[in-house]
């Protein structure tokens, strides 16, 4: 089976304030529909790896393949297209566009993709919000809602384009155990039903234990 995401010998250095190797020869892969969690202590390079895998950080050595396509061959606009179409990203600090409505936030990546009509996108966005239990917030401005809700909305946004991979940087970090459970189940279901792969960075051992595979990191290495 061909992996959805694969890295070969990724190395990454920080130069400021001193030269420091954050990632050392990272080679991992993610299969279709696989639910993988990444664990490790703070500062071990989990987030850095995630940014590279999400194509946002292009300053690294080594190869990254998504859907068999080599990322270092693509220019910035093409990478943006990949992020838009194939990757759903959930940030640690639930980044939403503060001045837009919740619904608009969720719709935004799909509007950018431009494959469907606005009315259909809207319907889909409402479905995703419903799925995460925040449909009642749809018409509020994003800055007016609570942290936990924001987190769920950003998950809904990550789902809107039915991406191949969902990447999350502590997506349940701000949720109570009930909501955390809920999010886990949603992700799990999606993985099963739609063959979405999950790559989730987390500190939550309970969460991690229930995933298909745990990648453990320490000091820039895969342990």
């Amino acid at each position, binding site marked *: 089976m061909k992996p959805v995401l694969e890295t070969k010998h990724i190395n990454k250095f920080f130069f400021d304030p001193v030269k420091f190797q954050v990632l050392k020869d990272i080679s991992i892969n993610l299969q279709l529909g696989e639910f993988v969690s990444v664990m490790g202590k703070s500062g071990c390079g989990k*987030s850095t790896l995630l*940014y590279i895998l*999400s194509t*946002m*950080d*292009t*300053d690294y050595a080594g190869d990254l393949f998504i859907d068999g396509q080599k990322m270092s061959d693509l220019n*910035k*606009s093409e990478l*943006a*297209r990949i*992020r*838009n*179409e194939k990757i759903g*990203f959930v*940030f640690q*600090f639930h*980044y*939403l*566009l*503060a*001045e*837009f409505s919740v619904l*608009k936030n969720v719709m*935004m*990546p799909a*509007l*950018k*993709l*431009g494959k469907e009509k606005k009315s259909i996108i809207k319907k889909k966005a409402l479905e995703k919000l419903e799925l995460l239990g925040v449909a009642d917030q749809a018409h509020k401005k994003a800055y007016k809602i609570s942290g936990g809700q924001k987190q769920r909305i950003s998950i809904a*946004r990550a789902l809107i*384009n039915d991406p191949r991979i969902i990447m999350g940087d502590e997506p349940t970090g701000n949720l109570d155990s009930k909501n955390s459970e809920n999010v886990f189940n949603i992700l799990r279901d999606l993985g099963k039903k739609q063959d979405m792969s999950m790559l989730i960075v987390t500190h939550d051992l309970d969460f991690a234990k229930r995933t298909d595979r745990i990648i453990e990191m320490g000091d820039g290495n895969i342990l």
Partner: protein
Amino acid sequence: MEQLFLLVDISKTHLLSKVKQTIVALLGVTFGVGMYIIMMSFMTGLNKLLDGLVLNRTPHIQIFTQSEPSEIQPFDRYNKSLENMKIYHSIKPKSQLERIPNALPILAELKNHKKVKGATPQATCKVFYTAGTNNLNGILNGIEVSEEIRLFNFNDYIVEGDVKSLIKKKNSVLLGAGIAKKLGLSVGDRLQVMSTNGINYSLSVEGIFQSGLAEVDDVQSYVSLKMAQQILGVGNNYVSRIHVKLHHMEDAVPMSNMIENLYNIKALDIKTANAQFDTGSDIRTLISYAVSFTILIVAGFGIYNILNMFIYEKMNDIAILKATGFTGKDVMLIFIIEALVIGIIGGILGLVIGYGVSVLIDRIPFETEALPTIDTYPIDYDPMFYLAGIAFALIFTFLAGYLPALKAKNIDPVEIIRGK
């Protein structure tokens, strides 16, 4: 297209959600454009007024005869080899008639010249204005009034009465304001003048003229050319001055040289006659350009500053948009659209305000002795100022948006996310 609408929609949300900030940015543009238009309209208006004061009324070339010592003395003709020895004493000017020789043919020829807009003959005669036992020195200028009006805005001087009366009635006179006051005359009264030959004439005062220069208004009056010739006791070919107006003032110097050479008479061009004025006018123009340029630069930096802040506040949004698949170009376009919207709306408001204040200034009373026909401050409504104003608003807001937008385009979203 659909994509562009999305970007416009995002821009709209940005602009509308921070209304206060948007208004401040708008006002920056409005103020700059408005001030520019007001300053340019007002200063150009004043400049044109001052220019008009002199230039519109002054002939480009004045032709007359002048008594000057001959440059070549008879002795020079006799023996050129004695160059080093000649000593002249007490050279006197050669006597000259006051009339221009062959005036009518010269006049006709000038009128046909393609660079000449028009030429008018004048006959000047010295007279005494008699009032009781007093004789006041005076000068009567015989003019062709309709040509004077066409070429030199002669009617601007007339503060009372009818300028056309010179055509209708042969013995009518347009009296200088200073003399009218001294003699206690007003329109409808009769003026007694005595020519240098000792003959008395009775003229009918049909108008009062005021040039604003006391020494002119105290002495000069205008009659028709025929009347002046009659007072002088000469034929209708007697002309003492010819005033020429050209299509382009720049031709004055070469044209006057040509006239001097061709007709062997004195021709004075406006540049020489009004050298100080010319310098003053140049300097005023320079100042007005310097001031408006400064306004534009200051306003431009203001706009840049505001837009820069506007965009830096949106760094978070830039990171999110990029992370969710918007390209650098999309992000740049969003901010350029925002800048241009501010530029267009602010610029149009600026035009409206600039025009409004100009109209207001145009209504402020401004009365001065020197300008009898002006009663409010002058404003020049040149559409070029409005065009330049809006062009400036668009160009500067585009640049002011473009530079930070370029930065937004190139910034790595990870930098922003990590920095949080």
